[in-house]
């Protein structure tokens, strides 16, 4: 049927944008609501829950908290105020850091974004290379690569981290052992984090490539005199990208939520570290902020994936909202 929705009318783009915004807001609202219900469901003094223990705060601070969260107000008002603050990005003060939650998260987000981004790019590169050279082949290379993928998948990520530190930092001295700034400090943790992601992506990509290469259109393309590399890169990869992008999105959302093991092994700060601290010290405002952050990250990633699917497969465009 001719005429994709894009070409129908000009305001359609605006409608779609508003719909997407609606989706984002409703997911955040739902996350905030669940968090609110969870707090209210915990028995005991709400101030104690918020502050992570009995008698943590003095009377003045207690009064400020009661006023801020409207704990003296009816439940409906408390809920409305809470959601309004949460949607505006105002989660209050983190007790542990004595800073606004949003500031704590923003500071931790930098290193996490660097690590997650670098690991994801590496994983995509490694996964693509492994899948492209081995898909549909029977030789030794395929055996070696899929064997390696299995080993990587069944090895804990901190073990890789330790191995890498021993090899490249202690023995060769190429990279800083722990902490540090800039690119050199990023290399080892990114590699360690990316290996299992790359193995998963390679498996899904290889399956997708092999399925595409078995389709009749692949035979047509070979019969045009197109070389094997062009067939894989220009045609089959796009078919394989559908399933692989779903997986990549899920994995990316996961590493954005913090890679606690990798951060711990390499002594990095990041979302993973503050999450574990927040849980340990029952820093409830910070935890709520982190919940909202991961909800936001996954809804954004899913919306991007939807858009990406439609870019990849024109047959999905008809069904676009």
């Amino acid at each position, binding site marked *: *049927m001719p005429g994709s929705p894009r070409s129908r009318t000009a305001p359609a783009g605006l409608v779609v944008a508003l719909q997407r915004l609606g989706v984002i807001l409703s997911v955040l609202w739902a996350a905030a609501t669940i968090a609110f219900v969870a707090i209210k469901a915990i028995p005991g003094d709400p101030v104690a829950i918020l502050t992570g223990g009995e008698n943590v705060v003095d009377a003045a601070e207690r009064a400020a908290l009661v006023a801020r969260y409207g704990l003296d107000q009816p439940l409906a008002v408390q809920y409305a105020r809470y959601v309004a603050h949460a949607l505006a990005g105002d989660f209050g003060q983190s007790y542990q850091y004595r800073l606004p939650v949003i500031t704590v998260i923003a500071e931790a987000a930098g290193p996490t974004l660097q690590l997650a981004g670098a690991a994801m790019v590496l994983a995509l590169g490694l996964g693509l290379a492994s899948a492209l050279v081995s898909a549909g082949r029977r030789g030794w290379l395929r055996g070696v690569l899929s064997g390696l993928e299995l080993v990587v998948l069944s090895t804990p990520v901190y073990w890789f981290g330790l191995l890498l530190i021993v090899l490249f930092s202690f023995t060769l001295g190429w990279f800083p052992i722990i902490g540090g700034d800039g690119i050199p400090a990023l290399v080892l943790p990114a590699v360690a984090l990316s290996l299992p992601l790359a193995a998963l992506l390679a498996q899904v990509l290889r399956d997708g490539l092999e399925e595409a290469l078995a389709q*009749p259109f692949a035979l*047509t393309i070979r*019969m045009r005199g197109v070389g094997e590399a062009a067939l894989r890169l220009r045609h089959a990869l796009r078919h394989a990208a559908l399933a692989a992008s779903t997986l990549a999105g899920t994995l990316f959302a996961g590493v954005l939520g913090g890679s606690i093991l990798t951060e711990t092994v390499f002594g990095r700060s990041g979302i993973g570290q503050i999450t574990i601290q927040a849980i340990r010290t029952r820093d409830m405002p910070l935890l709520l902020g982190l919940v909202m952050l991961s909800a936001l990250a996954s809804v954004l990633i899913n919306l991007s994936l939807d858009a990406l699917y439609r870019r990849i497969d024109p047959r999905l465009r008809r069904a676009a909202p």
Partner: protein
Amino acid sequence: MTGAGADPRDPVLREEARSTPVLAVEGLHVAFPGRSGPDEVVRGISFTIRPGEVLALVGESGSGKSVTARALVGLAGARARIRAEALRLTGHEGRALDLLGLSERRWRAVRGRQVGFVLQDALVSLDPLRRIGQEVAEPILAHRLLPRDAVAGEVQALLARVGIPDPAIRAAQYPHELSGGLRQRALIASALAGRPRLLIADEPTTALDVTIQRQILAVFADLARAGHGLLLITHDLAVAAQVADTIAVMQHGAIVEAGPARAVLADPRHAYTRRLLAAVPGPETRQSWLSRAGPRPERARDPRPAEPILEVRDVAVRFSRPGGAVDALAGVSLRVRQGETFGIVGESGSGKTTLGRVVLALQRADRGEVLFEGRPWSTLPERSRRPLRPRIQTIVQDPLGSFDPRDTVRRILEQPLRLQPGLAAGQRAARAAELMALVGLPREMLARRPRTLSGGQRQRVAIAQALAGQPDLLVCDEPVSALDVTTQAQILDLLADLQHRFGLTLLLISHDLGVIQHMSDRVAVMKDGRIVETGPVEDIFAAPADSYTRRLLAALPALPARAAPDAAAEPIGPSDAARAPGLEIHA
């Protein structure tokens, strides 16, 4: 490999470029390694194709015809062992090309450039994620035939050449946005893009409606007239009759008969050719079996022929689609008599499958109702319909999708038997064996799984499963469309035989007029969700009142051996594409 690097083609050939074969095949063997030594699927076949000649290689599936075609472009598979006395192509400017022992790189220079290849069903044979224009341009880019900025113009010229209107618009669309006919034309255009002198088409019209099939064959006829050599692979002699100059009949990897098309069709010498010809259903075969000699017995008619077993009253079904509602059925009424075969014919999208689903009460009618034996059927609640369901059964085009792949044939057959009360396990097993015998399958096949069966065997299992409930009415939706002609003949004969033995009523849905004419007592012609014409099959097709019925009839291929002399397979005339500019080979 014999002939590899053999004598350099003598210059004399170049002088006689016009009569030099585009392709010469001598003693071609193709073998695959099997469990007990090499399994030879092509056994020393020879043929030549001259410029402007259409050679049809005809045979049933497994005869080796597709392997032959793939061997000619070096894509028979990595395990294929190919040997031949000669495999010679005349390339551009009359250059002789030896196809034996080519490296993968040299093969790539041949594919698309010297030989264009068209597969069946463009929906899966074109990359569904790329635009038509990109697909057609690919051979041009792969062989670096034109500067990039000239490609778009060439693509549009190619699309116009195969008769696609508005080529600029079509080039920007995706395969799924085009109709089946246009899509197939686009696939042909992409095979022409490298300007090959030889075209190979492997079942290029299978899966297309008859009218579209005729148009596509006309495109091939035009290309041959423009000087292309054409190798047409088909299981259907009726298709070959429409365009082929020469027919080579292939069986078990060998060519058993070859010659000018008219001679082969009018006076077949080999028993296999005669069997292939006899297997094509049509009006002349109504009194006979298709897969064996002898007349078909007259059907035992119900003593009360006026009593309808099925009555469809003014049924309408509307589907909502993005961009508006579609009337799949717009007020359809018909009465099917006890024991008859009622044919429903129409092209894809005419609503015939929806009608079948309404009759099976799998699709709710928005208006109207269906009566079974004079009592309400479609309006019943599902609970009260369930006990009656075994009496109305169905067979579909590809039963593989309706079988659980993990089930054995035994389980598939016993499943409906479990629903019958008071049938012990032993009785079920006996009944399953009985059903196998009914549909002509060996009892040992009960242990097999559907995937290991051939298409014809699977369809027999589907028929046996439908018979398990001892039905009165069998709704057959395109029961033979996925099968080649000889298997189709066996399945049609089986259905006719079962009908004769059990007094079954058949509602036969098909896009193939030949099948309908062969099988049906009465027929309804459907178009756009309506019945445009209905009546006894002899009357309808002897004097079609509706213009659409006439068009369907005109598209039906006729075979000279059987048809009256004046109706003998008239070769397809110039199509619209012939009038398009630039219809010659630019080599």
